[in-house]
């Protein structure tokens, strides 16, 4: 009775000519397990099932995947949040090349992250102690620095699906704004200049899938809006 029906995306390039969905029956013993626990139970049945996982508490960003149509982290998604009619469909994050089963090639995603120069730049000599920052200035980084690079947002974004090579995507732009908003960063102009083309930022159409799926409750659309404001102010 407590058997959950799980349909999972399988593809091993060494043996499969095409991907397919495999059906599993998982005995949850009536518990409201996390989706990651269900994957472990499935792997006990078929050790070949491949997926990434590490912290199992929603902070490392390894196990982003598509669960019944919505991106999220398997380790902090209880069955009660996603299962409908006792059925769970698991697919890899959409829009990125599949390496095997639930494992996608995150190369394009990381490349866009690297492109925004995700590190503090300050051209003044560092003091002997820390650089001072008021609590109010520091508050501006809340909702930005917590990103775990799970790619749930960017891979749910139609603009990123179309132009993953040219549109930075919500995750990269959230981090871009994290440095633009940092009172200690002095590279504002260079950062904005590198974003002013028609694609990097302006491909965002405000669809807000990113906001809907972020497992950390962050709001990339708002950050993108702030960057737009800065770009427009810079242009006038």
């Amino acid at each position, binding site marked *: 009775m407590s058997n959950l029906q799980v349909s999972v995306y399988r593809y091993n390039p060494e043996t499969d000519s095409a991907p397919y969905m495999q059906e599993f029956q998982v005995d949850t013993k009536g518990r409201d397990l996390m989706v990651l626990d269900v994957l472990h139970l499935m792997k006990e049945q078929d*050790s070949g099932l491949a997926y990434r996982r590490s912290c199992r*508490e929603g902070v490392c960003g390894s196990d982003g995947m598509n669960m019944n149509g919505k991106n999220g982290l398997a380790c902090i998604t*209880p069955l009660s949040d996603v299962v409908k009619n006792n059925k769970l469909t698991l697919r890899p994050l959409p829009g990125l090349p599949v390496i095997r089963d639930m494992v996608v090639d995150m190369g394009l995603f990381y490349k866009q992250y690297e492109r925004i120069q995700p590190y503090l730049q300050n051209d003044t000599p560092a003091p002997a102690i820390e650089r001072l920052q008021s609590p109010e200035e520091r508050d501006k980084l809340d909702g930005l620095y917590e990103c775990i690079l799970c790619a749930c947002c960017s891979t749910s974004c139609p603009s990123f699906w179309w132009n993953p090579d040219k549109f930075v995507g919500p995750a990269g732009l959230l981090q871009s704004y994290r440095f633009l908003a940092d009172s200690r960063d002095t590279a504002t102009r260079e950062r904005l200049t590198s974003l002013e083309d028609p694609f990097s930022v302006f491909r965002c159409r405000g669809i807000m899938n990113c906001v809907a799926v972020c497992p950390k409750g962050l709001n990339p659309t708002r950050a993108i809006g702030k960057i737009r404001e800065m770009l427009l102010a810079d242009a006038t």
Partner: protein
Amino acid sequence: MSNLRSLTFDAIIIGGGGSGLRAALELAKSGKKTAVLSKVFPTRSHTVSAQGGITCAIASADPNDDWRWHMYDTVKGGDYIADQDAAEYMCSEGPKAVFELEHMGLPFSRFDNGRIYQRPFGGQSKNFGEGGQAARTCAAADRTGHALLHTLYQNNLKNNTTFLNEWYAVDLVKNANGDVVGCIAMCIETGEVVHVKSKATVLATGGAGRIYASTTNALINTGDGIGMALRAGFPMQDMEMWQFHPTGIYGAGTLVTEGCRGEGGYLVNKDGERFMERYAPNAKDLAGRDVVARSMVMEILEGRGCGDKGDHVFLKLDHLGEEVLGKRLPGIVELSKTFAHVDPAKDPIPVVPTCHYMMGGIPTNIHGQAITQDESGNDKIVNGLFACGEAACVSVHGANRLGGNSLLDLVVFGRAAGMFIEGALNEGIEYLDASESDIEFAMKRITRWNESEEGGESIPELKAELQDIMQNSFGVFREEKNMQEGVKKLAELRGRIANAHLPDKSNVFNTARVEALELDNLMEVAEATAIAALERKESRGAHSRYDYPDRDDVNWLKHSLYFPATKELKKRDVNFKPKTVDTFEPKVRTY
């Protein structure tokens, strides 16, 4: 064998967590040909889970704070088997390393004056234990590890560090002289196995909490570096010393930071009593973690535990108010809701002591150089091998680590190892190349799994069995007979693992093969732990025995040193000679 592709580096850093990335940053800046080899994308490393902060006398909360007070707390916290030269180095160099992190962009929380926010943590004092509770843990809300790891990764990007992400190190390669000259590694994505040649090999592989059934550690914490070093014949130090964190969420094992108690939270038993007042009248809930964990177990054993089974206690936070919780402990609010179904602003969190940290590891000096002993028991440097972070035992944590000292250990000794290797490379390092048979020796294990046949037992079942043995025989309280049985069961398990079966032999992203290789490492760590725990016949720090309840400074004011070839436990002297301060003499440890 000669068809094995080889990659050549000046230095290879195995592990992309805090210590590995800090070492890599130093080497990348120096222009040496360096690579970080990590089985996960670096920001998925376990450092990311550190919550409460990084303890360091930066004199922000208290302008008169002094690194010597921090050193005193560290030595006392470690129950006097921390090496005092190493603790001195960590505490005095610490401020420099923390300010560097801030300059790199780490988003620390702030005080009104703009300086880094510091909170009280367990075992902290002012004026060598005489001046009351200190507030010395620098924090980025309760996501300090995340902020630290991302900052280090970002700065490695800035400095063009080479990354071999999702590569798995299988075993060390030693030459005919016993020098470490690289490793065998596997690209997880393609399954390709390569010979990595390097003049310096740094094991920054973190902890191994997954030897226990209940742990705060990530699933990836399987002691890979420890396993590699043991199979290469090198000794491990103080492996009996495992920290059980007082506040793992009951059932799930996820960590709830000590910062909760630093911010004013406290533990209660089923009668609602703040029981730590009885066990540690001065420091109360902010006593050393070993002391708090034992007190909790005592409460549970004496029938004052909470819940239907009376098998946990409660951490009360609701009196702090939603504002403090939202500002200082937002991650904890999230975790409690997800894993305990509790809103800490309203209800207490059910918690239980949970395996958290390996104080032991690869013995090193303060430069990260791995150490072994010669026939007459003198320290001897292992050429080419380095370790830092949780995988290493410098030892700054002795028999019990203080909260917030782990992140400091990572950055101070990652940095120190990087600086030392840079200097050594500048002076020139030449070791004999590995021979075909040396490489074949390091390939033995992966070959064994690839040739394993049906009929052998399953990997997940053997792992679960190992974790149960460790949980049942080597937990918070230990006792001779139970440990002897544990050691026996582990010996038998080793034989079964040697015949276990890897059903999936495919190449592309074969996580089953990674888990098989990890199981070997768990086995090595578990056995070293078990034998060291059985042989150390006293109670000290985290190692607590019913049959030897007292600390025995006459016989055991020593490091233990476990030798894998003979499975013998020897002793090694603790350093009592700091360079710039007087020795802290062992005293009775109370809080």
